[in-house]
């Protein structure tokens, strides 16, 4: 696999012919570090940006499932490279090393203070530049992140890169020249297929990530880890003319408090019926 530095229509041009005499496959997995959903997550009330100090940070669970999918493919196709790409503060290196221990081949980590509070458009721009630079046949993302709750960065990247996308897949089959999957929407279940290079995103229906063994943790220390700044990627953030989405107000909702608790001694069902009727809820 050769590195590619062209952004427009990146990926491997005329890939399927090339692939006939070159069996390798380069899979990029997009891992996002998010505040642990098991803790109380905080927003900075001035900026509206996540308060990173308030919670533990970890790789989003659904992105780990994306990584597991890539590694499972690599298990049975030895010529596969699994490149982990992230845009996150430098502190996310701990989470990314874990991805290497689990089986990733290398990491490309875009860290730049100017990216704090980046909107989805800028995030997609930066990640697109990073994956185009790394080169790829298949990009795998999570469907929706648990902090941004956006679910748009992958499709934005596909548009930028000029490649097909198949998002929200709850089952995936990767082939040397195409990818197939089951895409669940509110209206039904689609079966979709895309020629490579392509981008897919997966749901939490996919298998959980495996554990990193001792051997993996040792091996991770020697794996390539590339840190990039915006200048390395040639992405400009302070472009005054760019349309960005910005936070204009943030307010914290008062926490809920507990109400009446009864221990059932044989009549709790009746008491609940009373409660619902008194409060005009039935």
């Amino acid at each position, binding site marked *: 696999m050769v590195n590619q530095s062209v952004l427009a229509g990146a990926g491997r041009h005329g890939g399927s012919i090339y692939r006939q005499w070159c069996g390798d496959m380069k899979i990029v997995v997009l891992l996002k570090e998010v505040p642990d959903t098991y803790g109380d997550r905080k927003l900075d009330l001035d900026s509206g940006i996540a308060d990173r100090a308030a919670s533990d940070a970890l790789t989003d669970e659904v992105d780990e499932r994306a990584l597991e999918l890539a590694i499972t493919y690599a298990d049975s196709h030895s010529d596969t490279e699994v490149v982990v790409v992230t845009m996150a503060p430098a502190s996310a290196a701990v989470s990314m090393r874990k991805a290497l221990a689990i089986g990733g081949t290398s990491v490309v980590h875009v860290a730049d203070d100017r990216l704090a509070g980046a909107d989805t458009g800028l995030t997609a721009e930066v990640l697109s530049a990073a994956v185009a630079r790394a080169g790829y046949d298949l990009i795998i993302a999570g469907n929706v992140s648990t902090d941004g709750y956006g679910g748009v960065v992958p499709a934005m990247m596909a548009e930028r890169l000029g490649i097909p996308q198949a998002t929200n897949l*709850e089952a995936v089959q990767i082939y040397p020249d195409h990818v197939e999957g089951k895409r669940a929407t*509110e209206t039904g279940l689609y*079966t979709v297929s895309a020629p490579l290079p392509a981008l897919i995103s997966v749901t939490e229906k996919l298998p959980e990530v495996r554990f990193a063994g001792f051997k993996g943790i040792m091996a991770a220390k020697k794996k390539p880890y590339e840190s990039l700044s915006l200048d390395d990627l040639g992405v400009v953030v302070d472009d005054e003319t760019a349309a960005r989405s910005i936070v204009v107000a943030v307010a914290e909702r008062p926490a809920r408090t507990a109400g009446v608790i009864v221990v059932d001694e044989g009549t709790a069902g009746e008491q609940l019926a009373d409660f619902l009727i008194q409060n005009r809820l039935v």
Partner: protein
Amino acid sequence: MSQNPILVFVETTPDGTVAKSAAGLLGAAAAIGEPTALIVTAPGLSAAAASAVAQLGAMRVLTVEDLRLTDTFIAPLVDALAAAFENVEPDAVLLSNSVDGRDLAARFAVRAGLALAVDAVALSRDEEGVVASHSVYGGAYNVDSAVTSGAFVVTVRQGAIDARAEAQEPVVESLTVAPSNTPAATITDFEPLISNATRPDLRGAAKVVSGGRGLQSAEKFVLVEELADSLGAAVGASRAAVDAGYVPQSYQVGQTGVSVSPQLYIALGISGAIQHRAGMQTAKTIVAINKDADAPIFQIADFGIVGDVFSVVPQLISSLESRKA
């Protein structure tokens, strides 16, 4: 030319039926400008959809019929939306925050060079333009967002908007679209979701009854459905109940499932993990039944019962039945 046009992308199913989200989107659009709707269907299906959309408040309806729709994923929709955007020159473009709506919004925003905000629960205007309001971190924060320049592309949470627009006389124009020929995925099969016609949709329902792992099996989960039907409520579930196969994924309430804000939420055999609470804690009234007095769901319940769902719920149902009679 209309004043402050707002472009609404209305989703349709492959057979041309207008999605339920259309009414709320047009309601939201009417509050901030003059709604123009875009519908994209397979050939021959747009006329019926267009009049349905006018009924829901679209002052103008642009239609595109595209043969590619049946087998080409998302690309025909992006092409159509880009063409409609040029035609309408709106202040904002509203789409449903559905799986398809998000994909389309994302691709379109990049193609048109516009800023995007997702999962809005309300829209308004200030002196500078359109403002989208969001409920963040499971309703713990309210955040307003706006754009630095250009039209705002916004996906709107399904079921979040109660406002409805006034019905309009259909003003329908068919729009010509030049296909962009961007590489696209192919749709090879589609199985429509059979929705329970007698039960309300989870999204936007006034009452929701949800069941968790405490229900023990798919067979016993029927108890949740019985209570829901006696209250006229929608049925939801925890992720553990979905993972255990009691109900399909589309029932999941929470962080990675559906977010609901009903008048009444009843949690049966659900511990109330933080990720579940993230999808329901903005409900007006919360009721919980759980046999563990320490279950976190009780911290946010207005009425909590420490007890066994298999004895409390049947008693509740029969008590409600007898008082109805």
